[in-house]
């Protein structure tokens, strides 16, 4: 390792650093922007109430007892209301595999933080829709 080879290595590193200056940053301006998640991402669930038959297979298979169902609450002929407790859910995907009527799916939404613990129990009003208030920052609307 002579002096010139060390100097050459230094220039290699400097070249690399210089090139990065003009590149797009690798980081995202989270939470206002986010990366694209794969299709199979096991994020929060969505309950399609039209297809649901209240068979309770999702409730039975859940290893952490995160799902509760209310059979009294009916919108259609056979359906029921589902309550997901995201303080318990481990996103294993067994409930989605257990559902044979295409009534329960994972969505690629993974940011579920709330200010209050109780807000993480998603009732029928929250679990059946993906709508939420858009994130705003300095007058700009993101996501």
């Amino acid at each position, binding site marked *: 390792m002579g002096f010139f080879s060390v100097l050459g290595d230094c220039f290699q590193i400097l070249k690399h650093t210089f090139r990065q200056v003009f590149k797009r940053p690798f980081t995202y301006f989270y939470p206002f922007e986010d990366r694209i998640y794969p299709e199979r*991402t096991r994020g929060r669930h969505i309950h399609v109430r039209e297809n649901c038959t209240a068979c309770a297979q999702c409730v039975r298979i859940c290893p952490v007892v995160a799902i509760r169902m209310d059979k009294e609450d009916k919108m259609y002929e056979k359906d029921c209301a589902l309550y997901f407790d995201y303080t318990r859910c*481990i996103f294993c995907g067994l409930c989605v595999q257990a559902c044979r009527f295409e009534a329960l799916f994972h969505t690629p939404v993974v940011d579920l933080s709330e200010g209050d613990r109780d807000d993480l129990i998603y009732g029928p009003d929250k679990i059946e829709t993906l709508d939420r208030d858009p994130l705003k920052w300095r007058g700009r609307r993101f996501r």
Partner: protein
Amino acid sequence: MSPDILDGSMDIWFGPQHVSAHGWATKLTLVGDYIVECDPNAGYFHRSAEKVLEFKNFRQGPLVLERMCMLEAFLAEYPYVAAVEKIAELEIPERAKVMRTIMMEMSRIHSIQFWWGQFNAELGFFTMALWPWVDREYSLDVFEELTGSRHTVSFSTPGGVKYDFTEKVMTQLNRAIDRFEDRLVKFKDMQLGSPTFRARTENIGLYDVKQGLKWGLSGPPIKACGVPMDLRKDDPDPNLAYDMVDFDVPITENPEHPGQSDAFDRMEQRFAEAETAVSIIKQLIPQIPEGDIVDPKARGKANRLPEGEAYARVEGTRGITSVWLKTEEKGQTAYRAKIRGPCIASYYALKDLVPGSKFADFIVIFGSLDPYPGWWDR
């Protein structure tokens, strides 16, 4: 040891708060800078997984196992699934066998990539800590694209696997493997050629085969002594596709101390392991057959098992990982499950291995055995 030497001794609790302590606590007795006694204390990570398995049915069981070691989640959950398949006498489709093997080697690569970073960070070589972690991201991308989760993959189920390989998964897999294969040569050159790293690890934590087998070590810590002890060759699982590939058991033999291994040899052994895993995946990718990924009758058969006992084991990243399972007639859950993690042996090996070495070398010795606390407190 005469008692007067111990008069000036000092007891130090190493962990469980220390970052390099991985969540364990070891009581060290020091005289000056030298360790004279080492007392490992397991129990800080106990989650009663064996008891939990008695309350989970056979499709929920693998979820508990994969949380034992998140870095090799697929390798960790496989023995349980294999034990269930043995009792239920399930047939596995050919496609699922190959997919399992590919995912197993991918988990191994991921675990080794993480360990390089962790071990180098403990030694203070932060450059070599972050570079393998860049490649680890690509491995995680494969897991995420395939299963939807980055760590807790939850991929295998009794009778096959849950998620099929899509074109996008194959693209990600090829990208991860090609990139890693390319960078592996540079890493090896950088890591093993570094004079600082050599000075820090050579002749540190030296033990021979006899001692290693006495402590019950398996996997890379024993293969680094030059013993080709590998379950992939010695006891090939019929539900995996290791018979379809041609590979040699990776071993490391150091001419300076034959039959013995130090921290440097164990690092070299990890490189050999990664090279073998890459070659196995590369051989298996063109051989993936078409067909089902799960036995259609498995779902019904795995609900209630007949009475029986089964023992399944697999060559994990850190050593032999095994599960013993006992079921009762028409049982929905296991009657008793016993998990054997590889790290419990390497943790208690410290009791004989560490005394006599310097305090600063303690973390080198322990880090080189690839500790993961989830494996010794079940």
